[in-house]
């Protein structure tokens, strides 16, 4: 890989990757500290981006500080490459950084995500950038930053355990299904961002570098590869992930996170992989789900297959 030799081509009305170099340096320094203190939220001088706060500005700033001309970028939202915001962010980086893009998880060197971790295990050297709306896992328990910072500083996490235990006494189990808090490297309680708890186990000992950017709240945090990441639980109520009685209607997968797709207003529905690339890849390899031949289901599948082509039309 020689990024300098490969000539970058982008919309030169803007700096490469939009941010000026001073801002990139500031973010890069924050990223290095974040990696050195896994799970700790590093404050950073977040900038206004040409995308609304809450729509991925933190992830975009991290991606912009990391990415180079030789990178290949994948952007997903809800696990899908073709959701509008994923398309919009991918277009942004095509324009301001001229990077190659892909939908294939294994081909991407940088993956920006909102709400999911790809099903396919990541490799060493890949960077997974999470968009984070609320980086503070304790915020719902304590609205004040001055207080939550103290709680992290002294590792006072009793309140969080009490909250989870209240669920157990009320419902018989912990009623948190996404943004399920994790303990990183035995020290910091961290928000995994609003991924479903189904994805939590993938964070532990991942081979890739996991970076988290919260633009509005101006925080960056990280999980280096091969790091302990435990979902909070109790001995008598161990952490569990979601399971579905159904297999994916299109590719038949039984081990992926499924979205419920409403097919009509008479209760018709199907369950399909939220990770669109994972699902398409399986179908290409000949895997078939129970509704793979159904016209309505096939219409649904097509909308994701053609997204790359549509994007090229728009350039």
């Amino acid at each position, binding site marked *: 890989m020689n990024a300098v030799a490969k000539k970058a081509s982008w919309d030169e009305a*803007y*700096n490469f990757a*939009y941010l*000026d170099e001073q801002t990139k340096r500031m973010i890069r320094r924050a990223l290095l500290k974040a990696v050195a203190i896994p799970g700790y939220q590093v*404050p*950073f*001088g977040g*900038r*206004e981006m040409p995308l*609304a*706060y*809450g*729509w991925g500005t933190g992830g975009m700033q991290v991606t912009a500080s990391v990415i180079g001309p030789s990178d290949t970028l994948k952007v997903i*939202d*809800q696990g*899908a490459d*073709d*959701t*509008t*915001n994923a*398309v*919009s962010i991918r277009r942004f980086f095509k324009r301001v950084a001229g990077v190659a893009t892909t939908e294939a998880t294994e081909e991407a060197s940088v993956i920006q995500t*909102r*709400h*999911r971790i790809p099903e396919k295990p990541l490799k060493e050297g890949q960077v997974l950038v999470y968009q984070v709306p609320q980086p503070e896992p304790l915020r719902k328990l304590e*609205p*004040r*930053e*001055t207080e939550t910072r103290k709680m992290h500083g002294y590792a006072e996490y009793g309140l969080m355990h009490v909250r989870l235990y209240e669920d157990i006494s009320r*419902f*018989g189990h912990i*009623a948190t*299904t*996404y*943004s399920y808090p994790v303990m990183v490297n035995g020290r910091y309680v961290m928000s995994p961002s*609003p*991924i*479903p708890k*189904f994805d939590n186990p993938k964070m532990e000992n991942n081979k890739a570098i996991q970076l988290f950017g919260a633009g*509005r709240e*101006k*925080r960056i945090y990280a999980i280096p590869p091969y790091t302990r990441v435990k979902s909070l639980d109790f001995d008598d109520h161990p952490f569990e992930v*979601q399971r*579905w009685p159904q297999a994916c209607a299109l590719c038949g997968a039984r081990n992926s*996170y*499924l*979205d*419920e*797709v409403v*097919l009509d207003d008479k209760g018709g529905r199907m369950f399909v992989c*939220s990770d669109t690339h994972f699902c398409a890849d399986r179908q290409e390899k000949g895997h078939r789900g129970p509704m793979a031949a159904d016209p*309505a289901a096939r*219409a*649904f599948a097509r*909308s994701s297959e*053609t*997204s790359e082509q*549509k994007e090229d*039309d*728009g350039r």
Partner: protein
Amino acid sequence: MYVAVKGGERAILNSHKLIAETRRGDGQVPELSVRQIGEQLGLAVDRVMTEGSVYDRELAALAIKQAQGDLVEAIFLLRAYRTTLPRFAVSEPIDTATMLVQRRVSAAYKDIPGGQVLGPTYDYTHRLLDFALAAEEGVGLPEAPEAEAPLDEGMPHVADILDHEGLIEEERPDSEGAEVFDLTREPMSFPAGRDQRLQNLARGDEGFVLALGYSTQRGYGGNHPFAGEIRMGEVSVEIVPEELGFAIDIGDVVVSECQMINQFEGSKEKPPQFTRGYGLSFGHNERKVMAMALVDRALRAREMGETAMYPAQDEEFVLYHADNVEAAGFVSHLKLPHYVDFQAELNLIRKLRQEHQDRLEKEAAE
């Protein structure tokens, strides 16, 4: 069939075309020019410049046109543009005592050195719709009569008059060379200094700051304020280029400024005296600067040794929620697909309901 938010590139591009068409409106009606907005919607421009943190009437007017008059959207456009600008220098503090005053009033004294200058204000207009403005032929070129005598050159601040008697807290400038907190480059930090608070309030949403200021008057705050002085006019901006070593004038800006005077009971160390709240905005925006001055004073509770009991005194609450670019972004992000998390919640609700049902059946069987 219904396919959620899978639309992709073409839908986005078509949406952009549709918004361009809607923005233009009826083609029979002449298109609005950016100059017209700058000249005839000047107060909107002033607000967008203030909260957008860029003093440029033309860019602000362009943002208003592009945003179809949605000022919060226009502020966002200007802020995003601002991010891409290099920083050449930090200006010297502006001196509002040397302002070329267009308007200046004090509610604390009947008359003041330099006089009360009513200037352009809607205050005493009767709020009756003026149908003359709706006439096809327009209003022509209205002219105000020129004053018989020019205004005094020096217009001391009203607060300085109290200062001579020691009746009001001293206003101490920061020590020479002390760096001013810059919210556009550093994350919020607490406890916040007054520089950080004032910068936040100046950029803060006018409606939010207004409501908070109002709340301090209604009882969610203990101070009785007097509008010591409100002034609006031109001040010059100076920078000291590294290679010259002395200040040079780089242009003029119009600003509005408000000094609120508030009572203070005094403490063990300090005798009773008046205290200050301060507000400043680009352009002409008295509503904003007055509200800002009220909230500034409320936020000084800690340094005054007052108990912070009300929303306007709670600096984390005020500072974290004042920015409408942040607020609008986060509220609007709920429009993004959340179906993965919603699916997780669906699963949970179904499971909880099943468990509930099982329990009832079991109880009934017993």
